[in-house]
């Protein structure tokens, strides 16, 4: 199977398929150490070591969520301030217009809302989702990436990519098979 690959350039890349997470992580680490940069790995559940193996050490998610929280909280407080001090200032029970303790619950809720919206939509945006079509779906057996298989991908746009030599290298890492990914 592995030797009988059809040459149909330009390919999107080469995909190595593994049936256990440990082998996939070891392979991803070797590929990364070898100097490949345009690489990715796929797993049916989050494997922290796998993202670290391909060189993803930190995400900007916490910053995005923090920004969302600050924006939401400010918006919530300023909204109430504007409404009760400027736009619609009415005397309720002799309380001051700027009665800040009463503004805290809504400010808190808006902080959580802002942070939560930024967390979900920020995550989707940074991941480039929704993206209904992607070349990796063309890889044989890729449907199993959402079941029990693990994949390591080297894209053809990688400066070190050479179809024959990269395929040789990947095959040496002990995958089930190495296949071309068509566009």
């Amino acid at each position: 199977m592995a030797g009988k690959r059809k040459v149909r350039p330009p390919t999107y890349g080469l995909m190595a398929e593994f049936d256990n997470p440990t082998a996939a992580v070891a392979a991803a680490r070797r590929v990364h150490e070898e100097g490949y940069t345009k690489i990715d790995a796929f797993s049916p559940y989050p494997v922290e070591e796998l993202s670290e193996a391909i060189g993803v050490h930190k995400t900007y998610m916490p910053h995005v969520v923090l920004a969302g929280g600050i924006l939401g909280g400010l918006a919530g407080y300023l909204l109430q301030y504007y409404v009760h001090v400027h736009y619609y200032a009415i005397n309720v029970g002799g309380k001051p217009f700027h009665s800040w303790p009463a503004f805290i619950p809504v400010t808190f809720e808006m902080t959580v809302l802002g942070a939560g919206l930024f967390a979900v939509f920020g995550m989707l945006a940074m991941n480039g989702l929704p993206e209904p079509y992607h070349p990796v779906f063309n890889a044989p057996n890729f449907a199993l990436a959402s079941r029990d298989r693990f994949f390591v991908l080297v894209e053809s746009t990688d400066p070190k990519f050479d179809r024959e030599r990269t395929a040789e290298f990947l095959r040496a890492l002990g995958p089930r098979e190495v296949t071309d990914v068509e566009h």
Partner: protein
Amino acid sequence: MERYDYPHEDVGIHTTPAVIEPGHTFGTVTDKISSIVLRKRTPMAWWIGLALSFMLVNMLMGTITHLVLTGIGIWGNNQPVGWSFDIINFVWWIGIGHAGTLISAILLLLRQSWRTSINRFAEAMTLFAVACAGLFPLLHTGRPWLAYWLFPYPNTMGIQPQFRSPLMWDVFAVSTYATISALFWYTGLIPDLATLRDRARSRMGRIVYGMASLGWRGSARHWARYEMAYLLLAGLSTPLVLSVHTIVSFDFAIGIIPGWHATIFPPYFVAGAIYAGFAMVLTLVIPLRKFYGLEDFITDRHLRNSAKVMLATGLIVSYGYMMETWTAWYSANTYEEFMMRNRFFGPYALFYWALILCNVIVPQFLWVRRVRHSTLALFAIAMFVNVGMWLERFVIIPISLHRDFLPSSWGMYSPTIFDFSMFFGTIGLFFFLMLLFLRFLPVISIFEMRTMVPGAQIKEEQQ
């Protein structure tokens, strides 16, 4: 139950059943959970349940139509009892929803891995409970088509909502809670929707699950951001869930009615919410795992842990009842004392003592291991708590209102048939949505279950 009969327990050796039965692999976990949606024949019990709950949904629709056409006078609440079933049911449903967030968020942060097989289900419970809860205040406005007046927006009337009112806080708390719960649930579903997309045999299934999965492909880069976003959402939901019931309790505690004006309300309400929520989790999960043969994933460990949480929160709630009584005496305030005496011996005393029976006395059986280990007993106790938590809100709301400061303004309250048809209608709506969820979405988080399988952890070799 025979299969979970652990012989060593007779000897008194403490053992904990696993959170997932041995012998499962990534593949079997995936197949077993996704087959409920994709492969198995829909069980007859599902159709019967759907038909029954659909009838109740129609009853709800009929009631709402009558309510909108006629007005909220069709309900029993009127001066002096301005709040009754509408607010009781609102608080009851919101409380039930809270266990879902507790399981999915707080237990995630506490690294309680047993939560994994019930969190998806509990989150769905939250979402549907909040939907049922939202109906009550919305319809109690009397003109639900003008409900957007609750939100501040520039308008030609030149008026704005009153942000110093706990009712406004409630609007923001509940709408934020509904939004965040929906996002949390959907975010958790994305990878599982991708699994269903890849395993669906029908074209329709592939298209629908494919669209819903947003093109998820399990990339390690995506997972890294996903995990962080999910963790942060859990971190955000934790204070959120506490704040929501705190704010719900402010609806009462900020008022001056004896029986409402108490500083113990926020923690007592939050504990009550978790108590009611875990009771509802048990009520739903016990038949669910039986009908769908999910005993491998929702093991006795889950039931026992839920029972322990119920016992703990039940004790907090009991402490709340004690404190209410003690405060009424210690305040030396005639009205507070009268409120408590009215609860104990007044015209609605039966409801108060039924509440004590359901929420304080019956759950004490959970101290006994044999009771915690009996599925049937747990189900029965959970039903008592469901009823008890409804009675608690009945005791707090109408019983406090019907006799306040001036005997000349006292009155009696009794619900009408439409109060009941609305209440049972929302129970129907809840089960209707739950059954649709069971049929069309994975009831257990598949990708999180994969992390529980032996072999999911990376074995680090020496390099």
